């Protein structure tokens, strides 16, 4: 489903964010991307969503080569992905319901069906009662859960999350992790970039460990694809 073959991405000729990365992730896997800050976790996720393109190597998502994708095809790739950004990127002039509705509006869902799906997604993350609230009125954990609701409202096959539990206290972080676990359990492929090794420890997730842009052999967990 997601395959990297000798992928490199440089921001400047001598600074490699990712260097010769090769791995494969099967449908339905839960993969934790670990590593220090600046190790290349965000870049790896951005390559999957075609927010960035590889300088060399091949990134395959759902059988599509991201490097060959025409600009006009990128929106349709993204509609099959759920993205949770490090900075959340919520729209602060829209309420919880409208924020969650956005991907469905973009995809052109009929309004009734869209409203039904929005409520289902909000229910899943426990924000159903706050649908009229503006994001500023939400706590940090609630904002994060809103970001997740927006990412999954499209029912994507792949969910990508960049540091979804940063800035959250351990209890709230645990609740957010539980939401990802639920999606994994219903068959969604989940990639979570996090420096928090213990986040999904009970699930024994596959792990990709990055160190200065290179993939480290990780003795602590199964490599993905097995």
């Amino acid at each position, binding site marked *: 489903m997601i395959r990297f073959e000798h992928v490199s991405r440089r921001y400047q000729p001598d600074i490699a964010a990712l260097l010769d990365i090769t791995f494969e992730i099967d449908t339905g896997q839960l993969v934790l991307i670990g590593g220090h800050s600046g190790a290349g976790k965000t870049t790896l996720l951005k390559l999957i*969503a075609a*927010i960035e393109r590889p300088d060399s190597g091949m990134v395959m998502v759902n059988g599509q080569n991201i490097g060959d994708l025409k*600009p*006009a095809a990128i*929106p*349709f*790739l*993204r*509609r099959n*992905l759920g*993205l949770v*950004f490090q900075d959340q*990127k919520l*729209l602060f002039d829209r309420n919880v319901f409208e924020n969650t509705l*956005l*991907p469905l*509006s*973009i*995809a*052109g*869902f*009929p*309004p009734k069906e869209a409203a039904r799906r929005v409520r289902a997604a909000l229910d899943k993350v426990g924000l159903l009662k706050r649908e009229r609230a503006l994001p500023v009125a939400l706590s940090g954990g609630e904002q994060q859960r809103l970001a997740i609701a*927006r990412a999954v409202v*499209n029912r994507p096959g792949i969910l990508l999350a960049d540091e979804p539990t940063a800035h959250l206290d351990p209890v709230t972080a645990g609740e957010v992790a539980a939401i990802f676990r639920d999606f994994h359990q219903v068959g969604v492929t989940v990639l979570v970039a996090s420096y928090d090794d213990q986040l999904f420890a009970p699930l024994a997730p596959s792990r990709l460990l990055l160190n200065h842009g290179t993939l480290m052999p990780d003795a602590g967990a199964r490599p993905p694809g097995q």
Partner: protein
Amino acid sequence: MIEAINARFSQHAKAMGWALRRLVVAPLPTLLSLLAISITLALPAGGQMLLGNVLRIAGNDSVTPQISLFLALDTDRRTAELIGARLKNLPSVRELRYVPRSETLKRFQAREGLAEVLAVLPDNPFPDAFVITPREDGTAALEQLRDELGRWPKVELVQLDSDWARRLDALLRLGRTGVSVLGVLLGLGLVATTFTTIRLQVLTQRTEIEVSRLLGATDAFIRRPFHYFGALLGLLSGFGAWLIVLAVTLALRGPVAELTGLYGIAGTLRPLAVNDSLILIGFSAAMGWLGAALSLLRHLREPS
């Protein structure tokens, strides 16, 4: 299928609603820019309104020259009728109108100030006259006809009336060109205004545009509301210009009627013709859309 059409329609409706909200959310700036564009557009539109009225009041035959023929004062009624019959039979005469001296006298007596002057005179000072519309309006043909009629007995004076008509025609042509040039220039002004307005909108919506792109929005989806916004701005401005021209028409109606009355011309000032109004509003909407499209081309490039 119907669902899909509905969804598509609802996307357009949403984009339209967004554009409307953008206008309403800042009523004062919106009103001010609408006023500025409306006044700008009202200039060529008002010019077109005046031109239309001049054309209509001057009459369709304003460019067809006429010849006035005055008889000697001592011509009797019978001779005048004979001359009239002879004129009527000329192949180069298309239309003939007889103006008897008694009628001319009556008309002038009706005018204030002139009645006293006329009362002093012992006789009717006006001659019998004919107004001739010639079949051909070439200068050479007209002058030939004038010279020929001038040689007839009892004909005192033959006057060619084509000069003022030609001047008016040239003036109207100039006016029409002026209105077109003004229209094009101020249309470009409208494009420029929408260009900057849309640029500001894009800047204030930067986050929303970025997030929408990340969530799989196509270029068309992102552009659509801005296109509506530009077209709406143009449409409302066109309507505003139309209202201004209407107000000016109504305000000028009285004074213009007084003026034309003094010249003995019948006709009241009419507002912009229906087709001109539609062209005005359609044109300004199109220019607004164009300004938006150009602005998006410049300011909405995907950062890569």
